């Protein structure tokens, strides 16, 4: 295989009640997130790629070299562990330099590299510190510097921010993205936080029960989820039966939308995100939408949650619950909701239909 980057093809690992199957390509210099609920196989995937779990079926290649049977310590893949796994008996500098002991690197270059790496992660001058003197965020960055020290061809991050508080998480994910851009290293980033995945990645792989659900850009993952699982996992939304469409479709001056009537419905569903919903709470004014859309008149506001900057409305319409974001608290308990036909995603048996928009 002459392909660059990381290629996992037809990798399978069987556990008593769980099977992981993996087909994944990551281009050189790309940052890919793996996201999914706990127990979906994210960490196992990373351990397979590092070689901590042996790969018996399928193959893994990195920059054109088949590494399926190369021992862990010869793969040169950097990994940041969830608990950082910094060695408590070594100081910061020695932790960072750990991998350099196993390479032929002169003492001078070693110390130069430690200095450079600690500068990269904003910890210049920390090399003599003890691990237990560091804060969580500092430990995380030391772990990152240590993983980068041997100049690996691939960097794996296993929920690196999950042990930190919200503010620190935001700061560090920017820093990780920044370091990624600076080093240009191919990176796999495991997380269970959808916001983190959306902000940091070039592409996202959504996993469930050992399978890949979708592998795409953050925008497409969010707006066009390939499965209902991916749709729900990546954020809030409303799911309605497809046969509601004829009753609610409003086409002002154009003809009926082609997408909707292209296929006949049984067990078909439509999905849309709350920010796509237009909320109209003043019946004396005209409904502010002119393109073809579904309109749900006289929906009852059940709850109105302030989220700082916006409200999440939960409305009841003919026994269905519809979620919507608004900038203002609705003036009445009855509102009209609208969603453009173009913003609907259709599913048959949990899988998206019609790749065209």
């Amino acid at each position, binding site marked *: 295989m002459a392909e660059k980057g990381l290629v996992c093809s037809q990798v399978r690992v069987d556990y008593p*009640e769980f099977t992981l199957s993996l087909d994944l390509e990551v281009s050189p210099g790309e940052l890919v997130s793996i996201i999914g609920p706990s127990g979906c196989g994210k960490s196992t995937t990373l*351990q397979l790629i590092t070689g901590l*779990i042996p790969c018996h079926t399928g193959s893994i290649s990195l920059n054109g070299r088949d590494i399926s049977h190369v021992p862990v310590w010869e793969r040169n893949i950097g990994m940041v562990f969830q608990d950082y*796994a*910094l*060695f408590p*008996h070594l100081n910061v500098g020695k932790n960072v330099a750990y991998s350099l002991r196993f390479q032929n690197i002169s003492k001078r270059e070693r110390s130069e590299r430690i200095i450079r790496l600690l500068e990269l992660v904003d910890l210049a001058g920390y090399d003599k510190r003890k691990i237990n003197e560091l804060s969580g965020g500092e430990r995380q960055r030391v772990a990152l510097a240590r993983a980068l020290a041997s100049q690996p061809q691939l960097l794996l991050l296993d929920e690196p921010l999950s042990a930190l508080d919200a503010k620190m998480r935001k700061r560090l994910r920017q820093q990780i993205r920044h370091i990624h851009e600076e080093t240009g290293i191919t990176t796999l980033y495991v997380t269970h936080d959808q916001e983190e995945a959306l902000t940091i990645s070039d592409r996202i792989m959504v996993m469930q029960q050992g399978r890949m659900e979708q592998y795409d850009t953050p925008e497409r993952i969010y707006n066009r989820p390939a499965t209902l699982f991916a749709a729900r996992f990546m954020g809030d939304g409303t799911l309605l039966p497809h046969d509601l469409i004829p009753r609610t479709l409003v086409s002002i001056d154009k003809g009926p939308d082609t997408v909707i009537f292209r296929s006949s419905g049984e067990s078909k569903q439509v999905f849309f995100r709350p920010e796509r919903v237009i909320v109209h709470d003043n019946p004396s004014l005209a409904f502010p939408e002119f393109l073809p859309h579904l309109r749900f008149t006289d929906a009852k506001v059940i709850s109105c949650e302030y989220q700082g900057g916006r409200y999440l409305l939960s409305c009841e319409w003919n026994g269905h619950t519809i979620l919507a974001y608004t900038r203002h608290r609705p003036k009445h308990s009855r509102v009209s909701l609208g969603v453009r036909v173009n913003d609907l995603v259709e599913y048959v048996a949990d899988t998206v239909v019609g790749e065209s928009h």
Partner: protein
Amino acid sequence: MNRKEGKDILDTSRFYRALGTPAMLLLTFLFLIPLSIILGKAFVDVDGGLSLERLQAMLSDPYTWRILRFTLVQALVSTLVSVAIGLPGAYLLATYRFRGKGIIKAICTIPFVLPSILVVLGFVIFYGNNGMINQAIMTILGTDTPPLKILYTFAAVILAHAFYNFPIALGLISSFWEQLPSRYNHAAMTLGARRWTIFRTVTLPRLVPAILSASTLIFLFCFSSFAILLVLGGGPRFTTLEVEIYRRARMTLDIEGAAALSILSIVITLVLVAIHIWTQKLMTHQEEIERIDERRLERRPSSFTGRVAVMGYMVFSVVFVLGPLLGIVYRSFQAPVSRSGDLAFSLRWYRQLFGLEEVAGSALGTAVTALLSSLTIALVTSIVSLTIGTMLAARLRRTNRKRALSMELYAMLPMAVSSVVVGLGYYLVSSAIVGGRAVGITLVVLAHVVITSPFVLRSILPEYRKIPFSYTQASLTLGANVSQTFRRVELPLLRPAMATGAAFAFAISMGEINATLVLADSSISTVPIVMYRLIGSYNFAGACALGTILMVCCAIVFAFTETMKRS
């Protein structure tokens, strides 16, 4: 992390297997050889055929049953007394914060390393007819007859065992008690229960596993106690199984009878160890259920009675445990200065001990040789046990729970055979080999390795299990192979536990008398054996001088390991 069942690279790594297997083989070898020779002696009749004759003879002898009954009764009474003394202290340690708590906690580790011959000697010096307590009372009352005549009685055995073993109860129960979350007590309080009711209905039931665990361990120790009964029991009236095995093997030369009795001893100790392991499982089970993080409130004793209780217990345990030991040190510097027998400060015993002053016919003359061989034996024993213990721990850390339990049991097996029986086994080995002093010393070392390696394993394995797997995995992804990871990550993190284990092995070996006395011929003398001979010839002061040196050696080793841990 990876919570699912699956083969991780370390499971399949040959390195840990390669570490564990030889250690296991060696231990098996060291343990099984003497054991099988004993079995051979017990089950083989005069013609060389298999027979149960000897066992039947042993079991039908009423003398056997008399000894066994006495052994069990003294162990039971000793256990009850030890737990009864330890339990109130455990309460104080678990509930109150007070000055001197550290001293009491340090006392709790003493029984595991304190040589039994020192216990015996301390007992004689402290409680003996001419002992310090008697002298104190005699001075106060102005009489000439010692009021306390306890030596060579049943009470002496019990008291010595209690002094030796109550710290075990204290340590085990209090550390378990400390971990019990207090929210159940608070719940009971809000439900209207008074303090005593809470103790009876809430705390005590939860303490049962710890009390049982401490009791079985103490019972086991008292059952196989040897030196204390040999000296303080003082005669056929207070003979236990272990003493009888020694007597038959080395005095009446009834090897087969000794072997048959050993079988009885092995069966009983095996049962006791099994029960002890079961109680430990109960303890960990309860700890798992009750693992709640909460800030522990330790209050200072507020009431007057509380303060008196704490003070009283502290004084009692310090005097009870440290008194005899300090008495030994004090006595070693006392010698008669005049014909009338008045004592004054003197270095005479030390001068005699180091050969600076000639003494005819005293065992003290052999003390320097004994000290050198004891040091050599202890050093080699601790190195070998440390190696075996570490290798076994590396192997056991990776195995899954079910298999680990059986393997741990296996590694604990040497504990299930009393040291007298181990000594007997190696005595039988030595009688089969023709060899000089070097062979004899080697056999002593091997017996000590069998006795000490379970202790080393027990101090290393829990620490090993505390090292997160992610450390090992991180090291592997950073380019270190399995053996480099073992050397650069795991071993450095284990260093404190290894130091403790080695120090324990050293101290136990240094003070070991049971196996050594049974096994060694007259050409080999260790410090405890010379002390035993000195006590036997009523040279208590000389024994005290040697005992002080023994304590100093162990103290130096422990101080050295403390500095090792720090650096």
